[in-house]
């Protein structure tokens, strides 16, 4: 049995011996691991993470954050690596033809590993189970990934397409969660609104009801709501007139929770993640909470013969609704960081980024070249879904959801647990 500082020199009882043996036997048999085992887990660095979330300021649009540089970016003259680029992303979030074009241009192979939710994605990355060159986190994880020293800063000279093609809010001064875009580039932007079947609700009625559509008894058992606590509670906060989409007010969260339970128990709403793009086109749902990209991409799921104009999308006319974006980052341990920079630049290319969106994703990139009216006139977005197209103004008027403190997150999750348990 390895020596343990807490082991008493006097004779141990058989129970003590077995108890301590088991604890140490399960731990890694290295000196470093044994030293780490001396102190209580969770109070020192684990997996590269450091404590100090209490000291770190949570980034907000009116309180933007410049992330610390943990190392120098790779030099501009680093040669582009060959071989296989490991991309760690959500499933079905990239167009295979765009990936193929990247592979052909650089003579490499792209290996795409997926995760089902951000917690799973982060867990595997932190534990080192996935070796990724490129990762797609949500904005609320960026600061934490930097604090845990799991990301590398970007060399801006290698990603000229960001400044050339993207909205200024993402490159100058940079997004509020990463001023100067030191670690991240934007991938897609989206609003969260209410999708509906236009053959069952007319546009004027939908516009008049807005968020109340979920509670309309005319659509009992035909309502879908996102099985995602930030989107679900966030939307009900707005419905109640709470404009802080990161609210830490227990009363406001409680009210939002009650509204969701009312929607489920009173109007037969179901929590799904594919309600908009898979079920609404089939007619199973009439009303569905929806990200803008889901409803734009839903046309590919319409049964044969069903016209595109059955799909409708409501979002507040004053653009004061939920808005967000996804990002692309390069993990610190990326085996091919130079090639990864090329990948980021490729997806920020006017042509390839647009192809990824228009021919597959439905999720719009924040390009200055994308003119909402042109998207409609080109048929990329049906005219009935014009409200699903974003412009830069969305990011000044909309409500962004950022990282929550541990206590606030616990409030949200407690409410969500009650919803999941049936109320």
């Amino acid at each position, binding site marked *: 049995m390895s020596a343990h500082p*807490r082991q008493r020199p006097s004779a141990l009882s058989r129970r003590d011996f077995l*108890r301590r043996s*088991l*604890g*140490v036997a*399960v*731990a890694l048999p290295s000196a470093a691991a044994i030293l780490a*085992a001396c102190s*209580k*887990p*969770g109070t020192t660095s*684990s*997996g590269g*993470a*450091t*404590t100090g*979330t209490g000291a770190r300021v949570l980034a907000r649009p009116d309180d933007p954050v410049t992330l610390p540089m943990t190392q120098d970016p790779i030099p501009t003259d680093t040669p582009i690596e060959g071989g296989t680029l490991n991309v760690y992303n959500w499933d079905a979030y990239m167009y295979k033809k765009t990936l193929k074009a990247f592979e052909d241009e650089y003579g490499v192979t792209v290996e795409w590993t997926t995760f089902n*939710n951000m*917690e*799973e994605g*982060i*867990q595997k990355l*932190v534990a080192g189970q996935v070796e990724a060159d490129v990762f797609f986190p949500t904005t609320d*994880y960026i600061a*934490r990934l930097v*604090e*845990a020293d799991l990301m590398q800063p970007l060399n801006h000279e290698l990603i000229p397409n960001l400044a050339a093609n993207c909205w200024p809010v993402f490159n100058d001064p940079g997004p509020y969660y990463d001023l100067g875009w030191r670690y991240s580039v934007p991938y897609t932007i989206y609003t969260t609104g209410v999708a509906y079947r236009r053959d069952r609700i007319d546009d004027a009625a939908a516009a008049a009801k807005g968020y109340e559509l979920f509670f309309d008894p005319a659509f009992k*058992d035909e309502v879908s709501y996102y099985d995602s*606590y930030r989107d679900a509670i966030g939307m009900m906060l707005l419905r109640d007139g709470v404009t802080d989409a990161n609210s830490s007010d227990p009363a406001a969260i409680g009210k939002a929770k009650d509204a969701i339970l009312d929607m*489920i*128990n009173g109007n*037969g709403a*179901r*929590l799904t993640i594919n309600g908009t793009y898979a079920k609404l086109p*089939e*007619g*199973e749902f009439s009303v569905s909470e929806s990200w803008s990209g889901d409803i734009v991409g839903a046309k590919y799921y319409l049964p044969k013969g069903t016209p595109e104009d059955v799909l409708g999308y409501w979002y507040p006319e004053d653009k004061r609704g939920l808005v967000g974006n996804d990002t692309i980052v390069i993990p610190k341990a990326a085996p091919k960081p130079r090639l990864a920079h090329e990948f980021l630049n490729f997806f920020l290319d006017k042509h390839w980024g647009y192809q990824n969106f228009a021919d597959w994703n439905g999720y719009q990139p924040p390009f200055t070249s994308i003119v909402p009216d042109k998207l409609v006139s080109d048929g990329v977005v049906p005219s009935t879904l014009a409200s699903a197209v974003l412009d830069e103004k969305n990011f000044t008027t909309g409500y962004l959801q950022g990282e929550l403190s*541990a206590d606030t*997150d*616990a409030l949200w*999750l407690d409410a*969500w*647990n*009650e*919803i*999941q*348990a*049936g*109320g």
Partner: protein
Amino acid sequence: MASGSQTVTRPGRRGRRDARERSGVSYPRWYWPSFTFPGILWLAVLFILPFYVVLSVAFGTVDPLFRLPLPVYQPWWWSLDTFQTTLEKFTSGDRIYLDPLIRTLVYVGLSSLICLVLGYSVAYYTARYAGRWRWLILVLLISPFWISYLMRIYAWQSLLQPDGYVNDALGVVGVTPIIWIGRPITVVLGLVYGYIPFMILPLFGFLDRIDQHLLEAGRDLGAGSFQTFRRVTLPLSKPGIIAGLVIVSLPMFGDYFTNNLLGSTSTSMYGNLIDSAVGQAGQGPEAGSLVLILIVLVMIPMLYYLRSTRRSTEAA
């Protein structure tokens, strides 16, 4: 005979014992028990170690940065705080976890009963009357398992749509379309569909082994068909019934994707609570605590089963 070892003998096999004694072969005391070693290793690696990890997660903590579960392997650092908080969600305040637990007990009870009634009928027919067709029937019963359970439940999800084939078929006899998804009856029938083969096969095994002569003796002594069934077949198949009930009900307690696909949050089961906690940041210890509480709960039917099989072995 050397101390610490024993000569292997079997009553009634005098010839072999004499042969061994003549040859001088004797086995050490640990020899025959050592044959259990592969099984013990299997149990240790695939049950005890993972169970210890569950304990370490339940009584552990979370990483302060990402709030991922941080197992604490040293028992002296274990904390019962989260376990206590989880238990309180069943017993005090709004008791938000109590409803899913009661629902699970009801759904599992109902589904197991339906599995028993339907499964017994099928097993009885197959064992007693199917004759040369019995193996074909058994193969047909098992063949759906060649397709993953998830795919089969997805298929049912499609069939049970408001405009699905089930409603179309019911519409032929004048029934108006029913909303199936999200209803308790759909979840119960989904569980029955998924687990009934686990009831049929053990029952078939027991019913098939019942000695025909016992049944004939019952008839000879004046019992009618039903009486023979009630007083001979049914008692003899009791171990099979208990085995079948245990085999179907235990996994049902932890089932979550049947409700995910065919139900809704208002029909959420215990497994959905665990699934939800596993997927949320900061809730790892709560998920572990829920698993431990479930283990204690299902110990009750397990202990009854063990006691009942031990009694039957002793009686035999």
